């Protein structure tokens, strides 16, 4: 089955092509087309995954372009990492599309929406099975385009347009770095293929400085895509897109691509401790930075967005400290519970028609399914014992400690505390207390929206058991079995760390309950004492403003200068030539008077000039 892995991206592409032609006319038909084709893709992906667990790998390439001795190839490859990603992406995409069928049912452009989703899924799946960096880059950019299209889906909203542009431009900054890194690697290793690059790195054919440089450049690409500090600003704004898109972007496709890239290029990072440290520090800083912003935001999707940024920081941190399995493991569990949280939030928004958590409340009794599912997701992401997030975060803590990064470990713990706090702040504000919303009739979402949530809920609860210190480290064994060269450390569980983490998480939940559930502590306790802290957090550390006043200001100023230059200098030259031509034309036009005698005079003068030249040069009379 592994040899048929290329079928996996093909089904969503087929969906895209079909819906591109017929999507305008079909409505529910479009949804069914997308869902069914993605389901087929998921089935194939699962069989590939099972086959791959059985030990078979595939690597098929064919020549695409031949330039001299250099061959650019296309093809596909299946290893443990991308087999897992294939199944994960197809799975989440399938559930999101199923959910969208209900969520987007009333949108007139539902056909286009499903077409975009198909293209998005296709790009991500194709990215995952790419065997070389060039092909990877092509689909990487395609993912960026799709995210642009989907974030700007409500293009008639100014915010959506701005968010789409922002997402595109900010990620492009990272893409440029990735491109440079890619070209440098090609220059050094002579090939785009991952295998060749790793071989060259391991054989020491690339200078250590160059390895570090390329690793960091590629990491910058991942930073852009995965919303790490300082390129994280697009991700919260991307909430302007439809909620299922947010779920897809945050759980499986777009942001996962960055983490996947770092995981994929792991041999490169192992060769450079400086690059590893960079990844770890950026990841750790992003984790606590985004989590602290998430503490005070009022928009439910925005809180979840910062939560995503924070969790991605965790993954980068894990990868940076050598916890390869921990990072990928957290990527997987995060896909489950973040998709669940977004879908549940979408369900809530669907019910009360607002995204402001201050205007919700008391929904527990009305949303019989959404409430418990959201709770499950919140517990999972917080790392409540025995749920999926607990195990994956535990792995990260252990890996960080194992690497001896005490400060990062402390940061990760604080971020975990923040995570638990803001997730339960959300939960209590939305589902507990008195109703503050204006919507009279609050109904539970339809079945097509609930089913994906339930499936994801089960996964979020149980997904952690594929790799636990207590019941067996299947995931680590699997990765370790086929890719020994990655140097994965088999860190067993550490009871002390587990206990500390559990205490921190429970503390966060308890504090949230005290403030927002029981109201034992005034909500204004912090903002009343030190208002600037709240303000700084609420304004997201003024990063957007900072960018606006420095980079955007500078760029637009420079653009204005160039525009000025263009209008007055370049355009002036053009107009000068136009004026010259017109003047010459005017002169020549006056010669064309139509009068025979004028023509005769001109002929005479020409003739006289000719014979004059002959007389002077002595042509005839010498």
């Amino acid at each position, binding site marked *: 089955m592994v040899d048929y892995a290329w079928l996996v991206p093909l089904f969503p592409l087929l969906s895209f092509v079909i819906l591109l032609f017929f999507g305008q006319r079909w409505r529910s038909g479009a949804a069914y087309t997308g869902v069914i084709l993605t389901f087929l893709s998921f089935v194939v992906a699962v069989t590939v995954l099972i086959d791959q667990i059985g030990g078979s790998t595939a690597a098929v390439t064919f020549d695409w372009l031949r330039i001299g001795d250099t061959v650019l190839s296309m093809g596909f490859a299946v290893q443990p990492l991308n087999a897992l990603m294939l199944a994960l992406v197809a799975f989440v995409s399938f559930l999101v599309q199923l959910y969208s069928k209900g969520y987007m049912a009333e949108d007139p452009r539902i056909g286009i929406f499903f077409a975009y989703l198909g293209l998005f899924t296709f790009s991500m799946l194709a990215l995952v099975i790419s065997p070389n960096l060039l092909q990877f880059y092509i689909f990487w950019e395609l993912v960026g385009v799709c995210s642009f299209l989907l974030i700007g889906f409500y293009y008639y909203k100014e915010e959506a347009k701005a968010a789409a542009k922002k997402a595109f431009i900010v990620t492009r900054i990272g893409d440029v770095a990735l491109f440079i890194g890619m070209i440098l690697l090609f220059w050094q290793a002579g090939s785009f293929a991952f295998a060749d690059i790793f071989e060259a790195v391991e054989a020491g054919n690339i200078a250590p400085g160059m390895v570090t440089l390329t690793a960091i450049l590629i990491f910058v690409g991942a930073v852009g895509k995965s919303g790490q500090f300082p390129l994280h600003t697009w991700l919260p704004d991307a909430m302007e897109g439809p909620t299922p898109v947010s779920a897809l972007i945050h759980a499986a496709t777009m942001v996962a691509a960055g983490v996947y890239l770092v995981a994929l290029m792991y041999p490169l990072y192992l060769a450079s401790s400086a690059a590893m440290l960079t990844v770890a520090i950026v990841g750790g800083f992003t984790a606590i930075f985004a989590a602290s912003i998430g503490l005070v935001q009022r928009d439910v999707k925005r809180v979840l967005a910062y939560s995503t940024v924070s969790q991605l920081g965790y993954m980068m941190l894990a990868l940076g400290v050598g916890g390869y399995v921990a990072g990928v493991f957290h990527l997987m569990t995060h896909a489950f519970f973040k998709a669940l949280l977004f879908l549940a939030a979408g369900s809530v928004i669907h019910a009360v028609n607002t995204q402001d958590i201050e205007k919700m409340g008391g929904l527990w009794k009305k949303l019989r399914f959404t409430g418990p599912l959201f709770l499950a997701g919140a517990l999972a992401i917080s790392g409540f014992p025995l749920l999926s997030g607990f195990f994956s975060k535990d792995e990260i803590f252990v890996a960080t400690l194992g690497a001896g990064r005490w400060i990062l470990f402390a940061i990760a713990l604080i971020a975990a505390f923040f995570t638990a706090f803001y997730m339960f702040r959300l939960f209590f504000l939305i589902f507990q207390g008195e109703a503050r919303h204006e919507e009279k009739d609050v109904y539970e979402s339809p079945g097509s929206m609930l089913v994906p949530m339930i499936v994801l809920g089960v996964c979020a609860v149980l997904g952690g058991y594929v790799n636990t210190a207590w019941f067996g480290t299947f995931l680590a064994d699997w990765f370790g079995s086929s890719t020994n060269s990655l140097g994965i450390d088999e860190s067993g569980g550490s009871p002390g760390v587990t206990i500390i983490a559990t205490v921190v998480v429970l503390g966060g939940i308890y504090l949230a309950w005290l403030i927002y559930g029981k109201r034992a502590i005034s909500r204004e306790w912090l903002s009343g004492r030190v208002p600037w802290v709240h303000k700084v957090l609420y304004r997201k550390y003024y990063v957007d403003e900072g960018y606006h006043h420095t980079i955007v200001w500078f760029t637009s100023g420079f653009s204005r200068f160039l525009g000025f230059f263009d209008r007055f200098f370049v355009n002036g030259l053009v107009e000068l030539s136009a004026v010259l031509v017109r003047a010459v034309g005017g002169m020549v036009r006056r010669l064309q008077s139509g009068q025979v005698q004028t023509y005769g005079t001109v002929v*005479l*003068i020409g003739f006289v000039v000719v014979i004059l030249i002959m007389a002077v040069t002595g042509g005839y009379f010498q």
Partner: protein
Amino acid sequence: MSGELLAFFILALIAIGGGVLMLNMRKVIHMVVALVFTFLSIAGLYVLLSAEFVAVVQVLIYSGGVSIIMLFGIMLTRHNDRSEVSGGRLRRFLAGLGVLVFFAIIFYGIKDLALGGGEILLSGQSQGGDQALYENNTEKIGISLYTNYIIPFEITSVLLLVALVGAITLAKRDEAKELNDDE
């Protein structure tokens, strides 16, 4: 100064004077009459050049035919019209300048030109050939025309016929049109 040279100068003076008068006259008819003097003096110069037949033809065709046609042309169009100099000052200046430069260059080229014929005549070696030019001049031209130049001669006659037919056609068509307009 020989009588021949004197005759040449008188005739040349009349010819150039006619031309210059033509340029400076105000009335169109006077211009044509001034040119008739030029044509006649050129006929006299032909006699000086031992070309009696050409001189007679010149008098008949130019002084007679062409001048009369031109006078008719003037009278049929606007006989009281004064012909002013046309065009702008610039064009007139340029035309005059061009003509002057042209004159200067050609004059520089021909002022000392003397071809073999003159020298031969001066040395008296080809006296017979010279004598032959004005002896039986008309007969010689006739023989030459009907022997060596018979084809150009015939073509010229065709040209004259075409010119005749063309001129009549141009005039006649317009007359018919005018008649139609009158009716």
